Structures are given as structure tokens and as C-alpha cells.
């Protein structure tokens, strides 16, 4: 009797330069080291049955990544989590595991993502109020952005893809490592929620490029941390 286990995992600083393809290989090898009863695809070139959620860009950390594992035999999700965690390299850790009901895989379920983004506004005039600027930026009927596609640069309206965007007023430049990267400029942290997944996907970089175009000065993205992924249905018991 096969089962599917869905896990939520974090990707910390040590593992943030691992690309999506490399990440799949890291898990595949960890599963083999752990001796877990993963199911394989049929055919001449068998692959482990694992599906990862929305790929995370290189350099981005996250506390809410998801993956599905199909197992060839029944197993308690907690045991699966423990055994796999012991074989994961620094920076990767499973924090939750449960049996997935239904057929749909994680990729199809993801609809949105939340990020905490630290930006540097090096050329921002003293007179500008960031709260006001953000409010006006969001209030327009259309928010245009230049998206690079395979066929060239395309103007798109990203407004429907912005679910939430707010300035974190409690943020201070405590993190010395990034403080240096902004020189004398001003740093801000934003909490944002955007559309994510196969139907519509808005990356934080594009959103801040658009904000910069609107403001007339650049917002350099220093740090992106994914804080949540939203699913239409998490297929939990």
C-alpha cells in the first residue's frame, strides 16, 4: 500500500545558493542515505517519486517550502521526518510532515506566496515618506511592470497579483552584514503577498523594480525570505 507524505521544510542561509535542480538531488541522496522506502517511476531509468513546490530563486531563504514524497510502503510521517532530517545537510530541515490525501500534487496546489523583503533605497530624497509612497503606488488602477520574457521585454499589469504590501515599521538596520551593502542609503523591510504558482507568478524583484520606476529612484533588493506559501487546498487529513 503506497502513501504520499507532504512535508514543510525550511531553507536557511547555508543552503540558499542551492538551485532548484540541485535541491531535488540533495533530497534524493538524503532519502537514499536514510534508507526510506521511496517509490520509483517505472521504466528503464527509474526516478524517485518526489515533487517539489514552487522553485525558490538562488540566494533566497525560506521557512515555508513544500514537497511530496510517494512511498512504496506505509510509514508514520513523524518517522519519515526524523529519519530524513538526520540525513539533510546544514540549512535544510523538515518542520512538519503529514499524510497527503487525494491525488493532486503540491505544484498544482500552490496559489500564493508571502515574503519578507529588505530593500535599499540609496537615492531616496529626504522628503519622501515611504508609507505614503507605497499607498499611492498601490492605489493606482493599474500597476505596470516590465517583465523579461523569452520573446523580449513585455509590459504587464501586476496589480491583480499583489495581495498585500506593507512597510514593516519596526525594522531597524540591526543586521550589520546587510547594513554595509546599503552604504548611507535608507533600508526598509516590506511584508508582501503575491500570486505564485503555475497560473500567475509575481517575483519580489519585479514588484520592487516597478515601485522604483514609479518613485523615480531605485529599490535594490538586498534580502528575500519566503515566509509562507498558500495552497488552494493542502489535502490534509
Amino acid at each position: 500500500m503506497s502513501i504520499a507524505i507532504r512535508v514543510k521544510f525550511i531553507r536557511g542561509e547555508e543552503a540558499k545558493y542551492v538551485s532548484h535542480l540541485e535541491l531535488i538531488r540533495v533530497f534524493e541522496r538524503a532519502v537514499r542515505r536514510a534508507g526510506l522506502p521511496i517509490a520509483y517511476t517505472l521504466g528503464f531509468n527509474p526516478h524517485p517519486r518526489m515533487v517539489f513546490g514552487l522553485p525558490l530563486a538562488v540566494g533566497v531563504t525560506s521557512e515555508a517550502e513544500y514537497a511530496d514524497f510517494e512511498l512504496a510502503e506505509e510509514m508514520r510521517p513523524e518517522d519519515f521526518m526524523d529519519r530524513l532530517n538526520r540525513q539533510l545537510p546544514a540549512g535544510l530541515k523538515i518542520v512538519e510532515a503529514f499524510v497527503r490525501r487525494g491525488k493532486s500534487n503540491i505544484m498544482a496546489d500552490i496559489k500564493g506566496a508571502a515574503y519578507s523583503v529588505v530593500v535599499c533605497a540609496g537615492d531616496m530624497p529626504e522628503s519622501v515618506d515611504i508609507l505614503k509612497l507605497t499607498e499611492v503606488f498601490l492605489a493606482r488602477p493599474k500597476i505596470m511592470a516590465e517583465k523579461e520574457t523569452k520573446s523580449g521585454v513585455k509590459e504587464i499589469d501586476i496589480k491583480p497579483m499583489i495581495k498585500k504590501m506593507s512597510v514593516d515599521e519596526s525594522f531597524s538596520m540591526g543586521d550589520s552584514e546587510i547594513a554595509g551593502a546599503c552604504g548611507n542609503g535608507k533600508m526598509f523591510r516590506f511584508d508582501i503577498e503575491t500570486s505564485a504558482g503555475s497560473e500567475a507568478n509575481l517575483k519580489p524583484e519585479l514588484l520592487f523594480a516597478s515601485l522604483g520606476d514609479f518613485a523615480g529612484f531605485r529599490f535594490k533588493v538586498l534580502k528575500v525570505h519566503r515566509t509562507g506559501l498558500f495552497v488552494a487546498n493542502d489535502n490534509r487529513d
Partner: protein
Amino acid sequence: MPVRISDEILGQVEKPSRYVGNEWNMVRKDPGSVKARFAFCFPDVYEIGMSHLGMKILYHLLNEREDVYCERVFAPWVDMESIMRREGIPLFAMETRDPVRDFDIVGFTLQYEMSYTNVVNMLDLAGIPIFSRDRGESDPFVCVGGPCAYNIEPLAEIVDFAVMGEAEEVINEVMDIYIKWKEEKAPRREFLHRIATVEGVYVPSFYSVSYTPEGTVSEIRPVSPEYPGRIRKRIIKDLDNAYFPEKIIVPYAGIVHDRVMLEIFRGCSHGCRFCQAGIIYRPVRERTVDGLIERARNLIRNTGYEEISLTSLSTSDYSQLGDLTGRLLEEMEPMKVSLSLPSLRIDSFSLDLMQKAQKVRKSGLTFAPEAGTQRLRDVINKGVNEEDLLKSCSLAFNGGWSNVKLYFMLGLPTETLDDVEGIADLAAKVVAEYKKVPREKRGKGLNVTVSTSCFVPKPFTPFQWEAQDTMDMLEMKQKHLKEKIRGIRQVSYNWHDSRLSFLEAVIARGDRRLGQVIVRAWEKGCKFDGWGDQFKFDAWMEAFDECGIDPAFYANRKRSFDEVLPWDHIDVGVSKKFLKRECEKAYRGELTVDCRLNCTGCGAGVFEGGICVEHRNKG
């Protein structure tokens, strides 16, 4: 103090995972708790260095010791290097990110002559004086090993010492002496003095070289009778019981050989006359099937790798290949671990094996006849004849393969244009073999690729006295072959840059006077010479010119048998007498048998190991 590599820097460079470390099985130690720190440097990028088996062995071997911490160092790619130079970041080690200049011993493995400018560049980036004479009491010792270390003369003024042969034992002896020396707080020279008498260690500064009026070497002698006149390489006699790491590092980033490398034996018994590896790794020593299965099992358990590759100079020569592969396949199947079998001689046994091992994907098959005519193949003692080759191709085509690569060398001793044309003829015969196979049986879309490299005469080979063809001559031959191949539709042709092979030939047989040229070339911006887009041939030629050294003297000059060669004081076991005899037989087109069949008296028997001993025991 570790150096800081900010996110901003890593965000700007290609493949940041080259610089971050933290891989599975990386060794972590407190540097304060060890007595000596060893920086194992590979003079190329991470993906290349991490694919090297020797580095894996020595890294883990040194780290088995509680009193030593060995870390890895790779050459930063040019994008990272320019940021490091701009920001004043010195060369650092992967594990602790501590500057390399703070280590006790800095060791480079030399796999390729064209990596020497990278050695110089890495020393400079580390802030370590390039020439050994400029290093002071607080600087690390710089040592080298690997196949190129057998003629280390071009780097003689740069390295403090070299290790000849397999370092598994000698490196521990050197570390013991180092730790004792360090505790005694003895002067720098004293350490070199102590290791100069360890078998397999060569301290170039304790040897002086004089030259004849013609510019050849007249004598190489130790500066004091305390030091050995000849330095003999070291080998591991019993490979089965030798150290082999079972917890190797598993990188995040795709490296060139991203799999378990299972070394089945060392050495090669064929005796191809151009091949340096075939001589310097003698004698042939096999590991047992039981030992290999045990190692494979532990390596997969500790790494989770999905593939095992058998490594050696010639997989088909392993005496228990059927037994080994059968048991490995059976053991690995449930874990879905596949087996890859490089450098396999193509026959019905191996084709059957490949089908079992690789299941599907009829990837390309590679043949290396090396020369286009039987006459020239006999000269180089490549025991392959046309009939065998075509039979192998036919078998492969009948088995559904349709991608064939054929490797040759241009510029081999005694080569004529007939031999060059022979390459095209052979390719045409391979195509004809394909056409003989019934349509329904053969794979679709025949693709034969002919590749030619340029022959580079290497030290410790029967061809060590030969002149390399000039670059003009090699290019003429490439052009000629291109014309001949153009007429055959299914065959494509590619060739190596003769300029790179020319420099390789100069350095491979170079003497101490080349050190200044290498440093001069580096000053002119040469590094990563083996990477086509980085190679600056003109800068190299300027460097030779400015140093008043004629590169053709080294590459294109035929030496006489009685000339003193710059590496004559190094003893690899195989005697000069044997090499001379082989060279003479080459001119007569006479073959020498595989030494597994009959001892050819090469001299490697002095090591009392492997097949040499087995021969003697048989009678």
C-alpha cells in the same frame, strides 16, 4: 580570522555554490585544537577539483588524524578573483574560510602542466611569496604532488618540496616530522633538511643543476652528500588494505564526476609508448572483489549517490570484471544505483555488460585506435588491429548503437601523410560496417566523430627523447585530414589547439629555467590556460621572448639517448634502459606484450608489489 564573503559578492558571481562549502560529509574541526593545518589546493575551479579522486583520498586520510586539519582550496573563477582582488580578500579555504597564508602546509596537486599559472596565481592571491627563497619563518611550506610532480623542475624555485608517487603513506611521515619540528621551534630550513631524506620526498633547493654550452643539462646533484642522489617514488604495495575514505563529500553543485568513484586497480600493463600514466603508475595492483563490494556498499550508504563508476586506466583489464559487475549490479538494483563503466574495451562481453548496467540510453561508444594505420599503431605499441576495431563496431551497431567516437593523435613519431589519411580511411570503414547491418536492427542516424589531439612527448615514456611536430606541421596535418574527411557524410571532425599542445610539450619536459617564464606569463595575465576562452598564447610567447628562452628548444628538439634529462634524478622504478629499448623497438615497429602475460623487465619490480610479485611467484 575567517574572511567574510558577503551575500552581495556571492550574488554577483557565476555559480556561488563554488565558494560556500557546507557540503554533506565536509569535515569540521576546531582549528585551535590541531597541531598542523594543511591546505589542499587544486589549481582549477571547484567542479574540476571536487571530481578528483586523489584529493578525496588525501583530504579524508589527513583528517583521520586528530592532530591535523586538512581543508580544501580551489582556484576562484575570474569573476570571483577580480572581486577578491578589488576588496582585498585573500585566498581562503572552504571549511573555515581562513586565509590560506595562515596554514602550515599548502599542497597543490598537479594533474596538468597548463595549470601551473594557476598555482602561481593562487599563491599570489593567498599573499604567499611566489619563490621559495622569498618565504620567511612565518610563511607556510608549499608542496606539490600528482603526476606532473615527477618532473617538477619548471616549478623548482617555487615549491619547497615535492612528493613523488602515491602520497598515502609519505604524507603522514611528513606531517609527523612537521609537528615535531614545529614543537621544537626549529628554523625553516631545518624542516626541509629533515624531510629531504624521507623516501619519496624531493626538496629542489637542495639540488643544483649545471648546463652544457649547448644549453642542455650537464648535471643535477645534491648540494650535500647527506641527500639522496636519486629520489625514488613511493607506492602502496597492498591496495586492498590501503586507506580509502568511505564518507566522501557530496557537493550541492553539479561537479564533473558527481558519483562514487570506485578505484578497481592502479597502473596499466599495456605499455603504449606515448603514455606517461602507463609508466608512472606501475606496477599494476588490483583490489579484490570482496573489498570493492564492501567499499561500494559503505560509500552509497554514506553519500546517497545514484551512480557508481569503476575507475582505472583500463576497466577491461580487471581480472575479475564479470564477478565484480555481476555482484555490484545485484546489490545496487534495489537502491536504484546505476553502474557506469568508462574506458571499456568494446567486445561482446562488454556490450552485454553495458546493456545490463545502463539499461537504456545508447550513449556514444568511444574507441581510441590513436593512429590511422597498422604500421603506426605498431610503432606506438597500441595493441589494436583494424579487424578487431571493425568487429567491435559491427557488434555495437548490431546492438543498436549508432554514435561512435574515434580518438587519434597527430604528430606521433615516424608519422607520414599516409598515416594521417589512414584516419579518414578507418572512419570510412566504420561507416561501411554500419551500412552492412540490416536497417531494422541498427540504430537510426549514424554519427561518427573523429577527434585528434596533438602528440605531446612526456618524461618517463619511450618517446621522451622525441621532437614534437611544429605547430605549422600539426596544423597542416589537421587541414589535410579535414579535407579527406569532408567527403564522408556521416563523419564529423574536431581537433585540439596545437598551440596549447606546444606549450604543454615545453613545460612537460622543461627544466628550471622555465620557472621565470611561467611567472612572467602569469604577470602578463595568463591563468586558466586550459580553458579555451582564457588561453593567451601571445602573452606566453612574449614571456619566452622577454626571458630569452626559445620554447622550440624544449618542444621541437630531438634529444640523443645520452643527453642528461632534467628529470634523470627521479626514479619511477621503470628504468631508462627499458625506455630506450622500447624506443628502439618503436622505430622497428616491433610490439611488446602486455606485461600481465609476460614480464617485460621494465624495472617496476623493485617495488615488490602487484603483478610483478605475482609473476615471480608463478615461476
